[in-house]
């Protein structure tokens, strides 16, 4: 760009496989003054829809990407500049950006972190890492999820940390055998992956069942965990949405699965056809049905929670700083259970359900990074 005061708004990379995104609506218009964090546009990827927030403040002077067109990741979709930058300079920058969008996805754009596998407890475990040398962060998904659940977080956090995401046994491309399905077995898997990565200490981030797993791993060896961030973790109360869990485990068709998956989000319109198809493809792999039903027994005793993370966290006894993040509109595990996480810094997130890391990723990322910084 000719003038340094012209700031580019770019198509974000939400997830390892994302190559193009599509703007479904421009929330901000040309001429609007925007502040950091303002909603700019709704963007749809083949997996999920999300809202792009402004990373810079200024006047939105030019909108380049049209609604509905395929825009390659990281190409310029709009320009922010102060009012005194000339229209000629902006038009020149806009024409340059237009040409990049029109050129489409470059051939070599696939990239992303390579998937690695480790043998842990006789199982093949998949994980993928990306980012800077430095503090290691390990992201642990919940029941029925996989390492791609972190699609909105892993790449952005990689700017500051070395960020890994794993597939727990029974999930993603890891072995589908879950043995007794216990939280202890899952926690041993997490520690085994840390060994495979070759790090002594890491920051653990766990969602839902993954939160209980992160706590159990920490309880086994507190010296290996620098900080613990729990997103809507299981095990801090009796109440849980049993019909959601049974519905997810039992759904055989897209028609059955879609309304179930909708319960994960505050805004059900985020559930795209591709997201449901991907979940269905996972559920149809040999062994997944058995794994999900075994893990159902780990999570629930009748209609209430079986896991007891509160006792486990008491055992850690403040040796590791704990942060808890919860969506205020969580319909799977009630956000009130955040109160039971002793000694934790709490973040309750507006307009988010059970998947705040997908619905409000910027806020969750900020909470995790604050936790890491606090841990020193």
């Amino acid at each position: 760009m000719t003038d340094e005061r012209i700031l580019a708004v770019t198509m974000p990379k939400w997830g390892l496989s994302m190559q193009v995104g599509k703007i479904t609506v421009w929330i901000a218009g040309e001429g609007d003054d925007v502040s950091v964090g303002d909603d700019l546009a709704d963007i749809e990827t083949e997996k999920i829809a999300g809202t792009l927030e402004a990373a810079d403040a200024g006047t939105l002077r030019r909108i380049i990407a049209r609604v509905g067109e395929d825009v390659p990741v990281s190409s310029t979709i709009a320009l922010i500049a102060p009012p005194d930058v000339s229209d000629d300079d902006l038009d020149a920058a806009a024409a340059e950006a237009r040409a990049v969008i029109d050129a489409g996805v470059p051939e070599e754009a696939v990239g992303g972190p390579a998937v690695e596998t480790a043998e842990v407890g006789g199982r093949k475990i998949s994980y993928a890492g990306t980012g800077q040398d430095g503090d290691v962060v390990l992201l642990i998904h919940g029941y029925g999820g996989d390492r791609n659940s972190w699609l909105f977080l892993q790449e952005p956090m990689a700017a500051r940390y070395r960020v890994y995401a794993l597939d727990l046994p029974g999930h993603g491309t890891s072995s589908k055998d879950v043995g007794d399905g216990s939280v202890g077995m899952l926690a041993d898997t997490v520690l085994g992956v840390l060994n495979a990565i070759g790090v002594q200490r890491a920051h653990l981030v766990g969602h839902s069942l993954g939160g209980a797993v992160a706590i159990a791993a920490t309880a086994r060896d507190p010296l290996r965990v620098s900080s613990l961030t729990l997103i809507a973790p299981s095990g801090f109360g009796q109440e849980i949405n049993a019909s959601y869990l049974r519905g997810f485990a039992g759904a055989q068709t897209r028609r059955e699965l879609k309304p179930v998956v909708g319960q994960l989000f505050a805004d059900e319109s985020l559930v795209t056809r591709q997201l449901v198809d991907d979940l269905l493809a996972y559920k149809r792999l040999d062994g997944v049905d058995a794994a999900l039903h075994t893990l159902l027994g780990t999570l629930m005793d009748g209609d209430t929670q079986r896991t007891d993370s509160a006792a486990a966290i008491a055992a850690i006894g403040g040796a590791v700083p704990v942060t808890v993040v919860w969506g205020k509109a969580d319909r799977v595990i009630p956000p009130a259970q955040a109160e039971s996480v002793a000694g934790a810094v709490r973040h309750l997130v507006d307009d988010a359900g059970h998947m705040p890391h997908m619905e409000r990723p910027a806020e969750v990322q900020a909470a995790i990074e604050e936790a890491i910084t606090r841990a020193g």
Partner: protein
Amino acid sequence: MARTITYREAINEALAQEMERDETVIVMGEDNAGGEGSPGEMDAWGGVLGVTKGLYHRFPGRVLDTPISESAFIGAAIGAATAGMRPVAELMFVDFMGVCFDQIYNQAAKFRYMFGGKAVTPVVIRTMYGAGLRAAAQHSQCLYPLFTHVPGLKVVLPATPYDAKGLMTQAIRDNDPVMFFEHKALYDLAGPVPEESYALPFGEANVMREGGDVTIVALGRMVHTSLEAARQLAAAGVECEVIDLRTTSPLDEDTVLESVEGTGRLVVVDEANPRCSVATDISALVAQKAFGSLRAPVEMVTAPHTPVPFSNALEDIYIPDAQRIVNAVKLVAEWTR
């Protein structure tokens, strides 16, 4: 699901994984082991287009090369199925089914019914279909409507590598006779396919693209032609919902009807001849059960009611192309009383 393999490799992988998992699974047909013992590429061809290549040596004694007598080996496969095996027999071209049709429609399809539910016939008959390979009228037909017509047969037409593997796995595990149609022009099509085994249920259509203006129902190779047409139409402001039926028997009526209830407009795209076909079947279904939703007459894009021409120029215009689908969609989208 990062790994990409072809439609041909996907079928081969499903066969190999099921043979690994279940020792009653066997493969039989003409040239499955043709050239066995010859050096290099000539060794064990794996069928005329190489779909079963590699299985002969990997599963000794379980890949059977048969004489060129379809009535004999298709009959043998059906008999073996009733006796506890899970044979996958290759009827090289569906055009050859005439000589073994009795074994299929009047024997295999009837056993469960005639023997009061006591007999199961877990046989898969793999067969190639479709035009486009300059193979003329006797090696290019789309005869799946004939099998769809017969109660007791399941009829499967995968359009993608992912579906080819999952539907083949289900076909082998299914306890009824399954006709598995492979389009010759799709063998080299590549797509993402999980390495692990998975089975796709029969009777579940796949919504390949969502759109609110016009429903396009297609199957087999025509799914891709329809998606190409839908891309062109989207650029012109017409959003099509493209449905791949995946199986014609059982048929997923609900997905078709729900879509037409939303769009009010239907184009059916079928490479087969137009009379008594899947295209007419879907049209009748919608006319009967979604009549109140229709805002335009149903359009069918099919081959003409002729044999497949041998002339290259004629074969090219025989096969429905994207332009014909675009025209049909525009016709129903712009239709007024």
